């Protein structure tokens, strides 16, 4: 009678004596079971055993040129593929280099698991070579984290890490693996699905609350729907559209919600908040009902709280109870998953004759149209290239179907304003943390997840230099990302604030000492193109889109252009600066 070989994955639940495997092998067995196909990483001494084991498994490794880029790439991979992004870095400086990326994923609630190497467990606390307390350092900016000191704990910890990363409100998890845990051996049995006593997220909403929401909707004359990143994370864009069309309510989103509702739809108001559209900010200020779905009322969106939606009753749907009643008091809080809640809400709403609804909404929609005509998103052309023009051209020539990643600052805001996203998982930006250097590695991650889509990083000349070394990663992995640098020779957003609020005292914002980006692209083995006049913009974009290699497009744009509208920090959103 042959003895069962415990090394058979896909035989869940049965507790049997497993085979002895190294911690490294156990790690890959669980990764395989979790369906992980790509790891973004950078090796080092502490993780050399993991790298040595990697070729035995069918897993693709993308070697970045900085650990921060590995995390941003995994982040974007997650946003565009719907899977959990995975990173692998070494101990000490490798781990500390990931902190920025982890903090950004935490702020934007992106499911990510970051494996960091650690010194052998006996050396912890000894100030050993390349030792750092990464669990302590990332405690405030991870959803949860783990230190693994023995090989026998690897399987269960990794299983839990993925469960936590993707469930409830998603977030980054750090798993710190001691060298002896990786090299040591333990009996391996595939762990069952994770189940944690202190962690039970609520997906199903309270039926009574959903009914209350439906009642408020029926009575409302000037409703506005406000979607956030939660709509995209939950996959609720269909349900959102159904709701909007059913009750004929105009829709706005936060930066993180862009793409959650089609940007070309009649009911689209544009983005809300500090650099949102005039009509979106006015509509929220004058509405009588605000239906907020998967958003957290961040200060960039609300402006001064006492003048945010002052005449409105507020319905707030979110999976995280801590987001509800945090900044804004609401009338109908609903804790639940956005997709499930919207589905139930749509079912419970009374059927009303569409002609009736249109009549009810006519004055409101007319008012919104008037606001749009008063102050549409506009800019004036001149002999220099206007940055807004570049984004519009990119939108036109990619037919609105590209994945757009951005850096941070003016480039990010113009991308959000002038590229109209019709589908979710197409706009990848560091929203909550606002981390420069995000765009190029994010483009790499997105292109890895979606090899058949065009991926464009809209960047500034300051931001692009923060992770420019990733051009090597793009070229090596044949990822034909396109980088559009809106090159104005300044740290644009800060310069704008210095212009508007500091009497044009430009301190430390002059970036005219930048490299020749075309030559830099060629030095990395990519293609570099430049446009200096408006007529050159279209041919440059066309050429870049035709080439199947990474391309840098250096657009030399008007130096002192400002992003409008702008709500001064701490101001009310209705008091926008328009020019």
């Amino acid at each position, binding site marked *: 009678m042959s003895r069962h070989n415990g090394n058979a994955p896909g035989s869940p639940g049965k507790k049997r004596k497993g085979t002895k495997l190294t911690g490294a092998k156990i790690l890959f067995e669980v990764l395989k079971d979790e369906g992980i196909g790509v790891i973004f990483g950078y090796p080092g001494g502490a993780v050399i055993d993991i790298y040595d084991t990697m070729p035995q498994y069918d897993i693709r490794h993308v070697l970045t040129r900085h650990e921060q880029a590995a995390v941003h790439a995994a982040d974007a991979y997650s946003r565009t593929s719907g899977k959990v992004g995975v990173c692998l870095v070494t101990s000490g400086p490798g781990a500390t280099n990931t902190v920025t990326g982890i903090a950004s994923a935490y702020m934007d609630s992106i499911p990510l698991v970051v494996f960091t190497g650690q010194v052998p467990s006996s050396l912890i606390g000894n100030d050993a070579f390349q030792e750092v307390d990464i669990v*302590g350092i990332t405690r405030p900016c991870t959803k949860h984290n783990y*230190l693994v000191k023995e090989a026998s704990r690897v399987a269960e910890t990794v299983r839990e890490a993925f469960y936590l990363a993707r469930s409830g409100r998603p977030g980054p998890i750090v798993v710190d693996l001691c060298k002896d845990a990786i090299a040591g051996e333990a009996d391996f049995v595939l762990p069952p699905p994770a189940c944690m006593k*202190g962690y039970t997220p609520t997906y199903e909403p309270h039926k009574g609350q959903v009914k209350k929401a439906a009642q408020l909707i029926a009575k409302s004359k000037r409703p506005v729907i406000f979607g956030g990143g939660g709509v995209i994370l939950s996959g609720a864009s269909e349900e959102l559209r159904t709701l909007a069309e059913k009750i004929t309510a105009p829709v706005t989103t936060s930066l993180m919600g862009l793409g959650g509702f089609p940007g070309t739809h009649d009911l689209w108001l544009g983005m809300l908040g500090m650099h949102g559209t005039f009509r979106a900010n006015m509509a929220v200020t004058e509405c009588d009902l605000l239906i907020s779905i998967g958003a957290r009322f961040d200060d960039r969106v609300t402006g001064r709280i006492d003048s945010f939606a002052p005449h409105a009753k507020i319905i707030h749907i979110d999976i995280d*109870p*801590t987001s509800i*009643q945090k900044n804004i008091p609401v009338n109908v809080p609903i804790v639940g998953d956005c997709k499930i809640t919207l589905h139930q809400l749509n079912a419970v709403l009374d059927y009303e004759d569409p002609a009736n609804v249109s009549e009810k909404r006519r004055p409101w929609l007319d008012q919104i149209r008037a606001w749009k005509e008063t102050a549409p998103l506009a800019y004036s052309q001149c002999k220099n290239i206007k940055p807004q023009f570049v984004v519009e051209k990119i939108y036109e020539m990619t037919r609105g179907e590209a994945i757009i990643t951005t850096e941070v600052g003016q480039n990010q805001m113009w991308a959000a304003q002038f590229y109209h996203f019709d589908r979710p998982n197409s706009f990848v930006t560091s929203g909550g943390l606002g981390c420069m250097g995000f765009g190029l590695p994010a483009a790499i991650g997105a292109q890895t997840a979606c090899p058949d889509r065009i991926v464009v990083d809209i960047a500034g000349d300051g931001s692009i230099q923060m992770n420019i070394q990733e051009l090597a990663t793009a070229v090596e992995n044949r990822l034909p990302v396109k980088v559009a640098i809106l090159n104005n020779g300044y740290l644009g957003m800060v310069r704008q604030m210095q212009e508007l609020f500091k009497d044009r005292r430009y301190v430390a914002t002059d970036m005219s000492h930048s490299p020749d980006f075309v030559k830099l692209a060629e030095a990395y083995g990519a293609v570099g193109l430049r446009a200096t006049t408006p007529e050159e913009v279209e041919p440059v974009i066309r050429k870049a889109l035709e080439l199947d290699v990474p391309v840098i497009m250096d657009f030399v744009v008007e130096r002192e252009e400002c992003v409008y509208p702008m709500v001064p920090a701490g101001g009310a959103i209705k008091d926008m600066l328009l020019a």
Partner: protein
Amino acid sequence: MNQEERHTISILVDNEPGVLSRVAGLFSGRGFNIVSLNVAETLESGLSRITLVSYGVAQIQEQINKQLRKLVNVVKVTDFSDSDCVEREMALVKVQSDAAHRAEVLRIADIFRCKVVDVSPNDYTIEVTGNRGKIEALIDLLRPVGSLEIARTGVIAMARSKKGIKK
């Protein structure tokens, strides 16, 4: 509405390294003040109880409680208002006093039904157990009598049983 109040919170947590750090970090990271904190194992294996007193506005406290519940290692959070729980704290108070006042120290200890657990030519160490009011009162009475050094456990609390039988 904006009155600062004292809140006693009892938190049941997984007994794992770093949990206390996580809970304390949640307070410090958001600028909340922890007045006292006590943690020990419970009879359920793998679970510990943290009893914590914080001081702040009620709306902020509501946010703290939600943030605590969100922590993966936190199993249950109970926020006691004063009437719903029994609170106790223990303190060791070392009183250094001259010959004239030494008798007074013993009288005060006797009134509060405290034990004297250490004695030397210059000082007494008194052990006192009770609610916050009793401990504060003892300290106030001892202060004029001599110089004090104090070690306190911080409050522990247990919910009161429901009064009567619900029909």
